[in-house]
């Protein structure tokens, strides 16, 4: 669902603009429909991002050759 080449922020901004445009009531029926569809797409896109699974925490550790490797970092409290 990454078909929109947008950051979350850009997507939300566009969604807000669509709401504004629709609220103005100055759009043609066709434009309203198009904007609505686009708005739903943007919502789905943003929602997908927020539904992203739990992020991972990794730490870079040097092996004996001095190369950096990413390893899971356990946070001990």
């Amino acid at each position, binding site marked *: 669902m990454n078909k929109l080449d947008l*950051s*979350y*922020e850009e997507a*939300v901004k566009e*969604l*807000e603009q*669509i*709401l504004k445009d*629709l*609220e103005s*009531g100055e*759009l043609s*029926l066709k434009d*309203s429909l198009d904007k*609505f569809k686009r*708005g*739903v797409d943007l*919502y789905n896109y*943003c*929602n997908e*991002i*927020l539904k*992203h*699974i*739990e*992020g*991972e*925490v*990794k*730490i*870079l*550790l040097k092996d004996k050759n001095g190369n*950096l490797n*990413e390893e899971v*970092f356990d*946070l001990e*409290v």
Partner: protein
Amino acid sequence: MSTKPLKVSEVNNYIKKVFAGDWLLSNIKVEGEISNFKHHYSGHMYFSLKDEKGKIKCVMFKSDNQLVNFQLEDGLKVVITGYISVYEREGDYQLYAKKVEKSGIGDLFQAFEELKRKLEAEGLFEPSNKKDIPYMPRKIGVVTSSTGAAVRDIITVIKRRFPIADILIYPVLVQGVQAPKEICEGLLYLDSKEDIDVIITGRGGGSIEELFAFNDELLARTIYNMETPVVSAVGHETDFTIADFVADLRAPTPSAAAEIITPELNKLKEDLNNKLIKLNRIYFYLMENHNKELEYFRKDLNYYNPINQLKDKYQLLDDLFRNLLFSMDRHIIDNKNKIENLHSKINYLSPISSLDRGYTITLDKDGNLISNIKDMSINDNISLIFKDGMIEAKVVKINRGEFYNE
């Protein structure tokens, strides 16, 4: 010259008064190295301050040493501010420490100020050169010690606010001679990674020397030249380092840094859902309006539809036709009645019915009806018609005049 002997306590008390009246001894700064350090269980500190040639006893009471934010220990070079007085019980004079600083702090501070001025003049602190912190980082780089409280605080806050972000830690020393170099390496490594959206570098609270790695010139220039936005989080809110000035954003603490760079996931979700609800509401409102408008048009069109006008005409025609039929019927019935009337009248007046009553009809030889005698002559042949037959007769006598006047 003989004088009255004084008691020991009187002597000590006298000396104490003399000391107290001395402007230098009553407010003095002494530099030296700590030795025989003892932190008594009462909370007071007892130690000596020494240099190559001498030594002085020192005491620092609990109420004063609570504010010291570094560990006093033997061998540490310090500058003590306080006063010198006499401990009368032992006859010792000692330095009562009110404040203690590490030696060389002044040098550090001066170096800090000089570097700050220099970099500021070069424009490294210019707000216009600072990069924007992303609104929603997908992956966060952290350059700090992997063992301190800072890394724990950062991870905890990110997990709480925005758990979907990935975190990549580049562990470094955060104090000591190697620290600036390692921090620079960490920053550059993470900067080379395409997917890191923002980097936090910093450490937990410490003394000014401990934080001094973040006052390094190379580190300042490295931060300045980074592609990725850098948030500094060094020490506590009151600590300022060169890294703080040059970073794209200065956070008062590591926790605060994590807080600043992450949006609150729950709030984002709520905002997003509200937008969807609003989108639906506005859209359906618009559709309803369009439908209403359409309905008006439909009604108008219907009203002006010629078919409907034709329907009216049809109806009128039907009415007329019905009226016509009705009139015709009436007319026919009227006529029928009239005819029947006439018929009975005719029946009544018919000569045939006169025959029934005993009259006869008289015809001349040509068959014409004879209704009077004025043209009749003797010997004329006539026919008499009866109800049940006809008689041929000859006129034998004619009596002129009214028949019934006779």
